């Protein structure tokens, strides 16, 4: 038995008689009806006017000249920059394309990029989600950072004093880029007074909004602690030769009740593999892979004391330019005595030897 809608699709797309295929427009998909909804939901937080991407995909005339590039990026898994392999774990806010979405985009790109009728599909959310309410404390970078006209990118560390007189637990740390089209990513560290920065407490990458920790968990912010904000600036070609000025900000959201403290565990992989034995039971909430060079794959697993192997995350072809925190749909509990193992693979020996690591944000049980 054949399904009618599939038959119709195939008549146009697959088994096409040669006559069908020789029409200038040989896709059944149109921009407004089929393509724009995908861009809105998967790409619009960066590919919008003023976004970090050099072109908006939210208008037909801005989009169709990029058809070949879109096709190549989608097929190469480069865009959207979401590298988690869903077979190894489920994560929140995945921007991974479905099979149908991949096919719609590629077919449209190859099939003549027809526009269709504006308003053919309901408009969906395109921007970054607004947090519920304002942060309890908002801190601006102490100084405006200037990326000179002759520099394309830069990394900048800024120290923010919180001025807090008592310990607090944070339910979220929000990073707000001052110049969204030039700020690619940021790592945020809590630095207790008299200490050095440890593992990052939070991260932000272009296109992300604020992310709250699950109820009952929070990051400890000791009295007198400061925040270190490590920002990666990167100009698009639209800003080449121009001076860029940025004064980003950080918002702190306090936990109201009691909460388990979230800590960062760092597993390093030098030469391809690293192991970290757990001396305490933990609950893994999220994972931040820190990839220092292009890799074929990154795999993190936990070997439980009974020999069971629990997959934590696998990244396929991770790109160092997109350091993202992957937040688990459901926390993973690991008993004391478990061994965390990080494995990276690459055809390139130099890439393999780089100091790759994985930060696990965990709550102690």
């Amino acid at each position, binding site marked *: 038995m054949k399904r009618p809608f*599939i038959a119709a699709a195939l008549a146009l797309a697959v088994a096409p008689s040669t006559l069908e295929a020789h029409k200038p*427009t040989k896709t059944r998909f149109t921009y407004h009806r089929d393509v724009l909804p995908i861009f809105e939901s998967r790409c619009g937080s960066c590919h919008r006017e003023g976004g970090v991407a050099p072109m908006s995909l939210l208008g037909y005339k801005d989009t169709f000249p990029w058809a070949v590039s879109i096709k190549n990026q989608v097929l190469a898994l480069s865009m959207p920059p979401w590298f988690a392999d869903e077979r190894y774990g489920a994560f929140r806010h995945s921007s991974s394309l479905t099979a*149908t979405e991949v096919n719609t985009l590629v077919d449209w790109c190859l099939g003549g*990029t027809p526009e269709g009728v504006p308003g053919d599909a309901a408009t969906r959310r395109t921007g970054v989600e607004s947090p519920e309410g304002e942060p309890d404390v908002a801190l601006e970078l102490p100084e405006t950072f200037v990326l000179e006209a002759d520099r394309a990118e830069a990394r900048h560390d800024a120290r923010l004093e919180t001025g807090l007189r008592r310990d607090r637990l944070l339910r979220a740390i929000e990073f707000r880029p001052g110049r969204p089209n030039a700020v690619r990513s940021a790592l945020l560290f809590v630095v207790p007074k008299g200490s050095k920065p440890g593992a990052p407490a939070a991260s932000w990458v272009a296109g992300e909004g604020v992310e709250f920790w699950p109820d009952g968990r929070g990051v400890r912010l000791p009295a007198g602690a400061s925040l270190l904000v490590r920002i990666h600036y990167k100009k698009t070609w639209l800003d080449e030769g121009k001076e860029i000025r940025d004064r980003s900000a950080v918002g702190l959201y306090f936990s109201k009740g009691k909460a388990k403290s979230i800590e960062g565990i760092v597993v390093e992989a030098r030469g391809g593999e690293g192991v970290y034995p757990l001396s305490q039971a933990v609950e893994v909430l999220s994972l931040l892979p820190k990839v220092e060079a292009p890799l074929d794959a990154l795999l993190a697993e936990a070997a439980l004391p009974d020999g069971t192997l629990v997959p934590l995350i696998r990244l396929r072809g991770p790109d160092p330019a997109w350091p993202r925190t992957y937040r688990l749909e459901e926390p993973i509990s690991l008993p004391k005595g478990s061994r965390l193992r990080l494995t990276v693979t690459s055809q390139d020996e130099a890439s393999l030897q780089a100091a790759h690591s994985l930060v696990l944000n965990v709550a102690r049980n």
Partner: protein
Amino acid sequence: MRRVACLRYHTRVMGTAWLAFAWMGAAVVSGTAQLQAGEELIWTCPVHREETATAEGLCAQCGRPLVRARVTVVWSCPLHAIAVAEPGECRVCGRDLYPVSQEVFFVCPMHSEVRELEPGSCRLCRMALVSSTSARPHQDHNAKHGGIFFMAPDAWHHLEGTYPEDGAFRVHLYDNFSQPLSAKAFKGRVVLKETFDPVSRETRELLAYPLFPSRDGSYLEARLPSGSFPIGPLEIAAKIQFEKDGPFDRFDFVFATLSAASATAPQAAAELVVPEEPKAVAAAIVERARRVNELLARGAFNEVYVPALEAKDLALALEAHVSSAPDPASLAWALKELVRAAWLLDDYGDLGNKEKLLLAYDRFDEASKGISSSYGITR
């Protein structure tokens, strides 16, 4: 046989076709066309005619405003310049006709700059306009000499490799309008043996022969050792330089027999039937994967797209059943991976690039294995 790809693939356009079409840019067509049966109204660039859209806009290559054009499909002979409205046989040689895309417009016999969408009279001299046509970018990958047809990475040049007699390998070159190009404008060589060093990741040629243009410039030819078909198919890597100082692009030809002298007639693919049951759909995907593997094994690279794209559409049909699969995440991953790999096989098959095809096939194969294991199908 082949619809294709080059329509939107163009990153660069070169050659005399620029000049041939440049004059069109001066003649802006306007008004609402009264289309004849079989005609379609499109927007296209006045210079880059392969750029098309269904709405007003700018050329993706040069930014010029698109102009309107009426196009139609006619049937032509692979060898003889005829164009008729219906499929059939060539009245000259009896070969099966194949479809090509044409632009239809009206010109003044006296003023070449006048080019209108509609019949009527010349705005300069009032003479009656006459109907004219021009070829659109061909989208036709049919072999003209019984050989194997590929497209260059620049998506403009095309080539056909033939092995018409023992020891003779020939390359016929074409532009994007299926028009033959003089082989005297190109350089190339043929590689029969090479080694790959995994440390330096470099390929070293051990046995290579130069390609020389024939006296009339109709093809490049390399004279190879005779007796080339002792055991199994003959694998030839042709490396062709399309532009002065440009790279030598590689094309992998595999000949199981001597090339036939005739052109290859296009064949319409059979309509795909999608089974009702998910497991049967998965089995159909596995069958397509087997066919892709078989085509790759015998070097029929430009035929791989048929089972690959069929598998892709079967995978799309299966996506509706992901939630009821035993391991939805693994099946969802396999389906999207197969869709990506199928498009890559289509792409690299056009280019005749064996290395890229085999890499894409690895992904395709892993995905099809994921699909078959989701439904307990033994391969």
